[in-house]
């Protein structure tokens, strides 16, 4: 939908177009006749009605009727109309032009209202999902923390040392979970704020991947991880922090949807001017019907375990797209699934930088 020009420009457009068509009519009057010109002007008013506000369109209707009367209807160059038939025609012209302008405008208003209604309904649904998901994901750890501290504060003497240790551990686990959710929400609002900008700098893909793996060591203890990066892979210009978050979220996602001992294969390569990064697993794969939805905000797989907000993969998508790249997911022929990220970016080969 294009935005409509301001009112002053709308008047210029409507008057300008009517005058242009009138001149054209004058030029070909001998061929089409003065009644033919009437149709040309009528079409002009109809077209204007599709794009402009009601007042400029009405102006064009009146103006074109006057022009047609003055320049075209015999006797020409007077406002008088010779025959009764032409008088009727002029009246009809005027009425049709007005109705046309008014009706088109009304239809457009209705269309707009319907569209706004649709959008509103969609966003209400969206925020309901959001609130449900959020209140669950935030309140569960908060409940754990409050409950545990209440117990520790008021019933301390009745609790065994082992119970106390367990409650303290619960507080710790819940806090980490809460922090993770807040982190995701902050990233998402960063993306949506429009204040978000990326800072590209030269990145060593080895460093990027292994740094992320090191951060995820506790989560990946029970998985097998293989990293395959060609020896001569160039450096790429990327936002290191954002790409770290991308790989982090993808790997967390894999651990949430595959059983322990799954093999995770991370590959990076340079294909033409693109960095191509894949993360594959030999787990259970995604349900085919849900593949195209996994990057949607707040989408969660049916029957997915609790502990996620459905934000991780949409942040991946947002951060990759901020690099003008794309991310996709597919199920592998035998078993498991594969995420592929492609980012077109500057690269530089390492050898020429060495001394």
């Amino acid at each position, binding site marked *: 939908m294009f935005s409509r020009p301001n009112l002053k420009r709308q008047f210029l457009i409507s008057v300008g177009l009517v005058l242009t068509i009138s001149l054209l009519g004058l030029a070909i009057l001998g061929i089409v006749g003065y009644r033919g010109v009437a149709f040309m002007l009528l079409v002009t008013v109809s077209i204007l009605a599709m794009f402009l506000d009601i007042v400029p369109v009405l102006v064009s209707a009146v103006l074109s009727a006057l022009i047609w009367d003055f320049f075209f209807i015999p006797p020409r160059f007077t406002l008088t109309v010779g025959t009764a038939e032409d008088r009727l025609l002029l009246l009809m012209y005027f009425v049709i032009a007005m109705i046309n302008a008014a009706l088109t405008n009304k239809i457009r208003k209705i269309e707009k209202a319907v569209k706004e209604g649709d959008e509103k309904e969609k966003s209400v649904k969206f925020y309901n999902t959001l609130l449900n998901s959020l209140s669950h994901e935030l309140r569960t750890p908060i409940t754990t923390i409050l409950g545990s501290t209440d117990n520790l504060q008021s019933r301390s003497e009745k609790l065994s040392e082992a119970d106390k240790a367990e409650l303290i551990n619960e507080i710790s686990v819940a*806090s980490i979970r809460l*922090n993770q959710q807040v982190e995701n929400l*902050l990233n998402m609002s960063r993306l949506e704020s429009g204040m978000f900008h990326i*800072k590209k*700098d*030269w*990145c*060593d893909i*080895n*460093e990027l991947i*292994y*740094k992320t793996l*090191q951060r995820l060591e506790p989560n990946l203890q029970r998985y097998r991880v293989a*990293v395959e990066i060609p020896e001569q892979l160039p*450096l790429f210009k990327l*936002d*290191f*922090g954002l790409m*770290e978050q991308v790989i982090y979220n993808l790997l967390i996602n894999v651990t949430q949807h595959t059983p322990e001992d799954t093999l995770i294969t991370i590959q990076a390569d340079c294909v033409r001017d693109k960095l191509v990064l894949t993360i594959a697993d030999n787990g259970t794969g995604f349900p085919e019907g849900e593949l195209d939805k996994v990057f949607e905000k707040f989408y969660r797989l049916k029957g997915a375990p609790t502990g996620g907000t459905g934000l991780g993969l949409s942040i991946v998508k947002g951060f990759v797209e901020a690099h003008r790249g794309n991310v996709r997911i597919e199920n592998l022929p035998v078993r498991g699934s594969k995420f592929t990220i492609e980012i077109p970016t500057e690269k*530089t080969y*390492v050898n020429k*930088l*060495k*001394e």
Partner: protein
Amino acid sequence: MNKPSILVIDDEHQIRKLLTITLQSNNYSVLEASTGKEGINSVSTHPPDLILLDLGLPDENGHAILKHLREWFSNPIMIISVQTNEEDIVKALDNGANDYLIKPFRTGELLARIRSALRDARKEPNNPEVKFEDMSIDFANRVVKKDGAAVKLTATEYSLLSLLANNDGKVLTHRYLLHQVWGVARQNESQYLRVFIAQLRKKIESDPNRPCHIITESGIGYRFIGNPSTF
């Protein structure tokens, strides 16, 4: 020996309380300030051994307080911030902060950083040789040893490593490293830094993919840790 004193400048009462309890129980004496103004007054009457400074104070911008303090105060200043904005952190480090911690941080990390910053401040200058757990650098003879065996380094690799090792435990920004090792002309050409860090890791790290001496600080710089097991 006197307990080292730490000034906490943070407007959040809960954070000050947490830090005070944590630090006192680890044998530090703690001073508190809730505004930048209070903090600066406190520093001028009782200069502490280290300052923990929150960047988001209500009365004055943390960066301004940092700059003001650095006009006369040379002991370590550590930034604590809720902001994960890398540019903000780099700016603070450029303005003379020694280190940074992002809220929420873990106590273990906080204490390790404080120990490291205080050790750094008390470090004897003009030391001709440094010895770490599995490596040593003999500055007088330009010899680097890893597990007792000499490591062959290029001139650039050596100057990068000695710069890092002389700032044990401290985060150095990309720009600072490039400026110091490659000079002004290449201070924005981070590709050199990436390549030489990778080469150095291959030579001095037991597992170059799991570095424990040269740590990547995403989007900010690198931190050298001489003795990883005690950090």
